[in-house]
């Protein structure tokens, strides 16, 4: 701590603080325009100028100047006030001052400072700017006439998003923020630039002219897309979620959001929302009442026993999943599962046997505290973009080393000094086993490893493979793999990250155990900045695992439930929020199962392909209308409360399951809170938690690790001659099938596509946007081509989210599908 005097007040501040921070800590506000604590010091706007006794004659920018012992600072002398007024006068010279029609009005730093400093006239004169306004995309409007050139947009895009869409251009008074070659904005559309813009230069177009900032209520919530668990502030007016509002203090991510989080909220108030229960009568779904619909379901479920089964989406709250399980158990069925049964295997089987727990032994916060990140699959950025931002910041600002093991390159590969080892598709487990082998062979293992259960078996199993065969199989040289092993083992702190989800069937229990082996071998567990972070796909995937919404004691898993539908063993299927017809592998099989099932109940927000086949359709609520908790990938439990009233006649799944429980003669729970308090008896790590204790930041469920070495079985891939290896995955802008109802994601990425290497494109004479027929042994679909140089020769990639192009028509759930392309 250093002692200093600010405005004649004796103060102390940390040694690393700037004058601005020191003043803030001590309750003195210094005005800023270009400063953002997330970003590197910039010092452009000169609003924060102060006088420092020890640096007489100059005016010192408070936001960039560190404090020193004995500093005597004056923040508002007449000279300083005059200088700040001059800055504002100069800025207002060229600024259009069109506040009445500017969406930023009321939330604008320039407007507020002008008011505060009473700049009611201008000593100077100059023309206004005449820049063209960029209306080229429906999400972000760029009006450089209002720009004060604080550079925050360009800086956040570079420093945090690591995309670099915006930059300064030209010199002197002509300086402006522009995209390269003054092209229209075409980026990730995460809107980070919009969030930090202090004026109305960058605006979210979907909310333009819809509501003034003060007319909206600001409702705290949690994003319902991926498992990162980002916190949201929803801007609500007239029971409509109109926008997401940036709150730099919110969440571990400090308000940073990705495209779907920021621009994908429209599904909540979508016209397509189901608002009334529907009952199939004479083959047609007709409007009904809750009482009638639920009575039919209750009657059907009563005593159904194991002929009834349930599939849930991992987007339901913990409380809903708990209740759904209870409902199934009350009718005597153990047949319930989520995420197609395999997408949670990394946790429920892999980590369960390797770590003795079904949670990751790390948190997102470890990313920035680590020395080395080993990322499995570059898709980690696409699946969890805000975790991707954390990786960007760790690598760019903290010098954390980044090693990537992937079947293709990706955005993460472009980070400074990132090393990407591109292996043949489907050979990740073999490579990771080889890394473990190298750690043992090169004596890089931690002293504690040999005493862990299973070490001898692992050592023996790994000794069986030769470097030659590994190289032939994976396409990576022994040297590369050994280097990776050395880097990982020698790093003081190292963290492994890998995504799991419906589109990543290869990221299974074996992969999880293989990765767990690395951490156990090198002792990189249970310490800050170390461990393995499994990143499941959906907002409550970890919660669904924690609630044990997967089969045990002889219950059927998702695959067997589907088989059971076909065989007739399963007669009643209750699907809550899943759309297996689009998202589960093997379209033909799912289609036949849903055809054959006697009675299908679907609770949904929308009339999905699956809901359209149902006998009863129950209109459910979105995250914005209900109360409960979600558990993020790093087992942080976070509370949501309704931001708006329920849409139409919809009910939350909590209410649906409660009502059914009552109809089936059980006692209904009092509230989600009461269910939550009962969770602690059933979910390890949730002990002692209550809604009150979760607070705004949520709370981490405790995780206890008991390490065991497991011998992971590597997937065997049988290449088909003359065909390309198709791997499935996530598109950056989408998550599951829900994001199809978000306007933002659908603008940026409206349909499926197939990404192909330049080499293969040349060979097959394929050009960008060519409509291709992609055929596998399962069938064929048509997809537009994207020629990309991140894809290695012989590989094609396609995202899975789209009802219009359901890739499960060609994909049977294998990690690698062999396909041919034709125009």
């Amino acid at each position: 701590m250093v002692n200093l005097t600010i405005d004649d007040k004796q103060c102390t501040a940390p040694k690393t603080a700037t004058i601005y921070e020191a003043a803030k800590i001590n309750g003195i506000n210094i005005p800023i325009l270009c400063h953002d604590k997330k970003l590197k010091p910039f010092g452009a706007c000169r609003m924060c100028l102060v006088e420092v006794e020890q640096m007489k004659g100059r005016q010192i920018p408070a936001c960039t100047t560190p404090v020193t012992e004995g500093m005597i600072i004056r923040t508002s002398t007449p000279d300083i006030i005059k200088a700040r007024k001059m800055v504002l006068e100069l800025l207002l010279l060229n600024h259009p001052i069109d506040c009445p029609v500017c969406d930023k009005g009321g939330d604008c730093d320039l407007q507020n400072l002008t008011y505060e400093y009473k700049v009611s006239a201008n000593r100077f004169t100059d023309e206004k700017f005449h820049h063209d306004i960029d209306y080229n995309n429906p999400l972000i409007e760029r009006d450089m006439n209002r720009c004060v050139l604080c550079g925050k947009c360009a800086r956040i895009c570079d420093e945090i998003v690591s995309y670099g869409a915006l930059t300064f251009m030209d010199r002197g008074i002509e300086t402006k923020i522009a995209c390269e070659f003054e092209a229209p904005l075409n980026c990730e559309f995460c809107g980070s630039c919009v969030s930090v813009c202090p004026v109305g230069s960058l605006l979210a177009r979907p909310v333009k002219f819809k509501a003034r900032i003060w007319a909206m209520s600001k409702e705290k919530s949690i994003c319902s897309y991926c498992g990162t668990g980002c916190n949201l502030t929803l801007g609500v007016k007239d029971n409509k979620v109109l926008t997401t509002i940036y709150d730099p203090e919110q969440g571990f991510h400090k308000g940073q959001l990705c495209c779907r989080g920021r621009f994908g909220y429209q599904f909540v108030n979508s016209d397509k929302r189901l608002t009334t229960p529907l009952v199939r009568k004479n083959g047609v779904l007709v409007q009904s009442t809750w009482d009638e619909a639920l009575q039919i379901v209750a009657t059907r479920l009563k005593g159904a026993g194991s002929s009834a089964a349930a599939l849930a989406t991992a987007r339901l709250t913990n409380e809903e999943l708990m209740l759904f399980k209870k409902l199934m158990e009350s009718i005597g069925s153990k047949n319930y599962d989520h995420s197609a049964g395999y997408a949670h295997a990394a946790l429920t089987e892999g980590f369960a046997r390797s770590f003795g727990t079904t949670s990751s032994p790390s948190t997102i916060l470890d990313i920035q505290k680590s020395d080395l990140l080993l990322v499995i699959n570059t898709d980690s950025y696409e699946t969890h973009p805000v975790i991707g931002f954390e990786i960007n910041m760790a690598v760019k600002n903290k010098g954390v080393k980044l090693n990537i093991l992937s079947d293709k390159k990706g955005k993460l590969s472009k980070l400074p000094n990132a090393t990407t080892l591109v292996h043949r598709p489907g050979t990740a487990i073999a490579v990771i086993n080889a890394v473990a082998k190298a750690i043992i062979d090169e004596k890089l293992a931690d002293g504690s490893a040999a005493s862990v259960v299973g070490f001898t078996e692992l050592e023996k199993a790994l000794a069986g493979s030769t470097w030659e065969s590994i190289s032939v199989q994976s396409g990576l040289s022994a040297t590369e793999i050994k280097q990776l092993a050395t880097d990982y083992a020698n790093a003081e702190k190292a963290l492994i990250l890998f995504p799991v989800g419906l589109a990543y069937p290869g990221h299974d229990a074996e992969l999880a155990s293989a990765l767990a082996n690395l951490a156990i071998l090198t002792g990189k567990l249970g310490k800050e900045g170390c461990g393995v972070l499994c990143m499941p796909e959906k907002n409550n995937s970890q919660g669904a695992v924690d609630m044990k919404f997967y089969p045990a004691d002889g219950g059927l898993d998702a695959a067997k439930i589907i088989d059971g539908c076909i065989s007739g063993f399963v007669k009643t299927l209750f699907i809550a929020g899943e759309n297996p017809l689009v998202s589960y592998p093997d379209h033909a099989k799912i289609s036949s199962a849903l055809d054959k099932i006697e009675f299908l109940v679907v609770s949904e927000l929308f009339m999905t392909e699956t809901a359209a086949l149902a006998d009863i359709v129950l209109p459910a609520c979105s995250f914005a209308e209900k109360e409960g908790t979600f558990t993020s990938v790093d087992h942080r439990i976070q509370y949501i409360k309704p931001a708006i009233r329920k849409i139409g006649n919809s009910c939350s799944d909590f209410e649906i399951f409660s009502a059914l429980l009552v109809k089936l003669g059980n006692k209904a729970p009092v509230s989600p809170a009461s269910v939550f308090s009962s969770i602690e008896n059933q979910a390890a790590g949730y002990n002692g938690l209550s809604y009150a204790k979760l607070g705004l930041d949520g709370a981490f469920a405790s995780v206890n690790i008991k390490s065991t070495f497991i011998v992971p079985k590597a997937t065997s891939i049988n290449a088909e001659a003359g065909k390309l290896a198709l791997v499935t995955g996530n598109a950056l802008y989408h998550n599951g099938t829900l994001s199809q109802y978000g306007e933002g994601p659908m603008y940026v990425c409206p349909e499926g596509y197939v990404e192909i290497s330049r080499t293969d494109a040349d060979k097959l004479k394929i050009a960008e946007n060519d409509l291709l027929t992609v055929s596998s042994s399962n069938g064929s679909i048509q997809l537009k081509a994207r020629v990309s140089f991140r894809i290695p020769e012989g590989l094609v990639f396609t995202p899975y989210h789209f009802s219009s192009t359901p890739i499960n028509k060609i994909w049977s759930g294998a990690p690698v599908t062999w396909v041919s392309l034709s125009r």
Partner: protein
Amino acid sequence: MSENAAIKILICQGTGGISMGAKEVEAAFVKHLAEKGVDALVGKRCDVIKTGCRGLCANDVLVDIITPEQGRVTYDFVKPEEVEQIIDEHIVNKSIMEKRKAKPYYNTFVDKQMRVVMTGCGQIDPDSLDAYKEEDGFKAIEKCVKSMKPEEVIEEVKKSGLRGRGGGGFPTGMKWSFCKASPGDHKYLICNADEGDPGAFMDRSLLEGDPYCIIEGMMIAAYAIGCDFGYVYVRAEYPLAVQRLQHAIDVCYEQGYLGKNIQGWGINFDMRIKMGAGAFVCGEETALMASIEGHRGMSRPRPPFPAVRGLWGYPTNINNVETFGNVRHIINKGSAWYASLGTETTKGTKIFAVTGKVKHTGLVEVPAGMKISEVIYDVCGGIANNRKFKAVQAGGPSGGCIPADILDTPVDYDSLIKAGAMMGSGGLVVMDETTCMVDVSRFFLNFTRMESCGKCVPCRIGLKVMLDILERITEGHGEISDIETLQDLGAAIKKASLCGLGQTAPNPILSTINYFRHEYEAHINDKRCPSNCCKELLLWQVVEDKCVKCGACKKACPVDAIVWEKGQLAFLDKEKCTKCKSCYDACRFMAIE
């Protein structure tokens, strides 16, 4: 020179020399010497040597012939077709061609100077390592490595009193000690050769004329500070400097003067050139580093200073070319010798680029503390065309104007600042009575406002506003309150701007208002430009009592707007006139207003 030594023909081949045909002159010498068999005729070897700039570029091509009989004789304005005659008369017949010899003022120009940093320039072949070694090249670094600890080198530089020649005047030894004190194994050294001031070209001449001297200076700094990698940031507009420096670096690598374990002395130093893309602001150290890193050249806030966190986050020391040029002389001749030159606060010599309305423009190196009047009148021969001196702009586009009554100001850092100007990189723009001080301010401000990186508000917008006001004044639309606004805004911009560019850009305006306020007032109140310079305020007529009826204006007029006959007063036809000012510039009697 001994009787048997070779005859040397030194041909000035800086950028100025080459553009005046020095390469052709050299070729002519080589050709005629060979054809005539001069070596055999005079019984001596005749070496044709290309050298760097000698300073008086206006008189290029300059050829020095050194023979045992005549010693050194300089010919100026040499053309290839004259070469044969020079060889015949001077070398073969051993008689000096008096008529073609450089006039006495050339010798005055040279003799009045004191050449320390530029000793090699114009004397040695800049591409020859051997030539450099003959001039005690690499002796200084050898001395440092073999007999001095790094701390002692820094101490020696501190004692010499050397201050940064880039303009800031920060004590060099102190700067080095800061960087040395920063923790870290990896440190960078940068030589700032982004010489952007219009009219200044000493850095270019040094790199073109004596590149090894700069390399050695950097090696000494690197040894003293503990840097292992050096960048020379040169503007891409200096192709010859880049080419010669690159050649020198290549030769140094070949000969083991750069790289690992230099000369077996156990020191490592690598070096490379980074070319700048022509932004003036990249001469500012933080913008320069941003540019090397591949970012847009924009200044960054200090602290942290480069010595603590500079290039790519590592401790970095940045000095100007001329600063590095001084270093080897300090080591070779000792700090006491160096400190004996100059004034109390400014030691050593300083190179100035003298341009403008002076008789002999060029580079001059003089002991710090020489009076400006001596530089202009004694070294450079005074004002051209017998006009009256008005002011000298010192310190480049962000320097200030010094009027006649304080022309005795010594050229040292502190006196210049006191006079409202600054040392800057050492540009001296001399202005005579035809120069309008408002227009000069407008000119320099137009430059700085165009070159502002656009980052901080006062510089980006403030300079534009000041420029608008100045333009208004020079067009006759000024108001008397404008002067106060300019002063007010100028002072505020100086205080509030982020980097040196904005902090100094208002200087020309403030100093001209200070010394030449009456000119501003004349523009505003009388709508007249006293120097008859601002076009919009000219009357476009001939002053009858000044006209000497010479007709120079008629010859100069491109549109036949001047009516003149021999022995008659000239008349300007306003209908035809396009206000190009050719007549005004041609008239030596100030008879056009």
